[in-house]
């Protein structure tokens, strides 16, 4: 990730509508060369359309698309140097794995021996060598996913677009594939634009994440930036699992403490833009809630629901009429029962403050 990297991709003001439905609304972002860039947002937010626009599968209504500096807004698909992995994998069902791999190379008129060499190399890299003569329909989901990946990688595209490639895999495979993809990216060094609705995928793989809403980017930044400084409640709610607890509050006159149902909370910083008495929302991540140690300032609460997730347990507690989720290590939650009282401590240094009206972060 060098600062001087060229821009592999630049979208400026791209809009696209299907009939009355606006898929992309003045979408702009750029991706430096070699970056693992994630488009994150819930379904039907325009991620797929954005990727298809980059690939050239969807003509834009307005705006400009540059790939490595040249205008590609209306260029044919073939010359863009972009390849794509579809959510549905979109393997050629009538061709063997070998032929699926070879297809893009044949289209590029690569010599037969070279095709063979690269197919075998790719198959080896993706551990698909024993499957080369099989048809996609006979492969497991994970294998199909790897074939789709291999087919996109084999012609060494400058930009690789991945459209929710892990959605159709089962839970365990999804976890394993994240690290695999990350390794591949590091190994091959290409620019990747990855669309996903799964924040874990976004956070764990993305070097940079653009959070999308209604066809536009609402915030972009590194995983840390998004986690630590969400610009609004939308981003705050989407990034981090379990979701951030939101507590209604009123800004006090000192601009640093807030009236909440849990009592008065004093944050470690002052808000500069707010006014006293303004309605605010305090965002507290479940992991920033702790069982209060003895003597620590604690909020009294009652356990409402216990969800063991294996390594950790999500415990929902009722406090002052608000429900708060907190994440506890498995071991420390085993003895808990719903109805038990639990003293909770809040790490006030990590409270996020939003305007109740607009949802924007208060600085």
């Amino acid at each position, binding site marked *: 990730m060098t600062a001087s990297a060229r821009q592999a991709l630049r979208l400026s003001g791209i809009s696209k509508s299907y009939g009355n439905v606006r898929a992309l609304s003045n979408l702009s972002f750029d991706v430096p060369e070699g970056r693992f860039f994630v488009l994150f947002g819930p379904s039907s937010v325009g991620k797929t359309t954005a990727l298809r626009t980059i690939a*050239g*599968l*969807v*003509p834009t209504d307005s705006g400009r698309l540059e790939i490595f500096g040249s205008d590609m*807004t*209306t*260029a*044919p*698909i073939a010359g863009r140097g972009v390849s794509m992995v579809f959510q549905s994998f979109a393997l050629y069902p009538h061709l063997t794995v070998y032929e699926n791999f070879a297809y893009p190379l044949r289209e590029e008129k690569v010599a037969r021996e070279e095709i063979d060499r690269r197919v075998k190399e790719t198959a080896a890299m993706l551990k698909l060598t024993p499957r080369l003569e099989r048809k996609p329909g006979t492969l497991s989901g994970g294998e199909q996913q790897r074939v789709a990946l291999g087919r996109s990688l084999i012609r060494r595209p400058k930009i690789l677009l991945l459209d929710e490639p892990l959605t159709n895999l089962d839970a365990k495979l999804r976890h394993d594939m994240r690290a695999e993809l990350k390794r591949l990216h590091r190994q091959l060094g290409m620019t990747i634009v990855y669309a996903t609705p799964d924040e874990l995928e976004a956070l764990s793989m993305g070097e940079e994440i653009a959070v999308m809403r209604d066809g536009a980017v609402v915030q972009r930044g590194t995983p840390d930036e998004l986690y630590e400084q969400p610009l609004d409640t939308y981003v705050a709610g989407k990034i981090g699992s379990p979701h951030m607890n939101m507590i209604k509050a009123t800004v006090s006159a000192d601009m640093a403490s807030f009236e909440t149902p849990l009592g008065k909370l004093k944050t470690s910083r002052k808000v500069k833009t707010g006014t006293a008495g303004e309605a605010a929302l305090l965002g507290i991540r479940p992991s920033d809630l702790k069982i209060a140690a003895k003597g620590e300032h604690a909020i009294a609460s009652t356990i409402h629901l216990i969800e063991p997730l294996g390594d950790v347990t999500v415990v929902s507690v009722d406090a002052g009429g608000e429900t708060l989720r907190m994440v506890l290590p498995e071991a420390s939650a085993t003895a808990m029962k719903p109805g038990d009282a639990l003293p909770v401590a809040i790490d006030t240094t990590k409270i996020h403050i939003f305007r109740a009206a607009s949802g924007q972060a208060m600085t």
Partner: protein
Amino acid sequence: MSSTTATAAPPALMTLAPDNWKLAILVGLAVSVIAAITFPASVSFWIVGAMAALVAAAFVVNAFRRKYYGGLLVAPAIAVLFVMNIFPLLWSLGLSFFAYQSNNQSIRFVGLNNYIKALTNDLAAEANWNALVNTAMFVVFTVAAQMVVGFLLALLFAKQFPLRKYLLILVLTPMMLSVVASGVFFTYYYDPTFGILSYIMGNITGEQFILMDNKLGAVAGIVFADAWMWSPFVMLLVLAGLVSVPKYLYEAAAIDRVSGWRQFWTITFPYIRGLLMLALLFRTIEAFKLADLVILLTKGGNDTMTISYHLIRIANEQNKTSEGAAISYLMLFMVIVLTNLYLYLANRRSHGA
């Protein structure tokens, strides 16, 4: 569906360009009119054809330059259908307003006379009406028989079992027979002296059995032969529907303790309904055209004349071309009304509860 590249602007009206279809139409029309006036029909036909080709070519080039792939893809089919179906249909529509006999090439405009004759002339209209009623009867009986038999056959083959493939082809074979051969053989099967049917019936009842000497028997004989030949068609479509019912629906029904009858109506039937309707549509269209079996089995005797055979006699044997055209247009009108009604019903049913 990608057409990201900018499309070239269409050429101005008077530019001489291969994609200027507007100009091509103008030129084509002008040349055609002049040719039709100056040359005999056999020559002007080709000139008009060439002009049509010119216009078509201009359209194609235009479509190609501007990437109207849809139009390009559909064009050959439309061209063939136009030349071989739509054009002849329009031609015969035109003919139906003339008095024209093909063996005697005089032609005279008579307006709606052919239609009026077909509908009101006491001899012609009665024959037409009679043939129409018979046709309706055959449509109802043959289609009903085919649907029922085809459906039952499909039920037989709905499950996978050993040798299914081989038994299925046996049942499909009647559809592959030439109507001439199977029809002629049915006259044999029904023959009171030589035929198997009368032989068996005679041995059972001890009395002479003549199937085709009354209307009921004649209709039954024709319906049986037709149903025998075409039930496999219905079967194939229904079978396709049956095997498409997901097995888990039946499992769910078993868990939900749904009765067999209700299972059929709420699970099986909705799945085959579409294909059943398709089969019904195609077979109804074909049944409307029933002629060959009637010709072979009864020659229209015992009051089995169908509209299609009636038309063959009028238009072909008697060479009353334009009169036949008028009758067939009346018939087409009816078929279209019926089909639309059918499609309307089909759609309403699949959309309603």
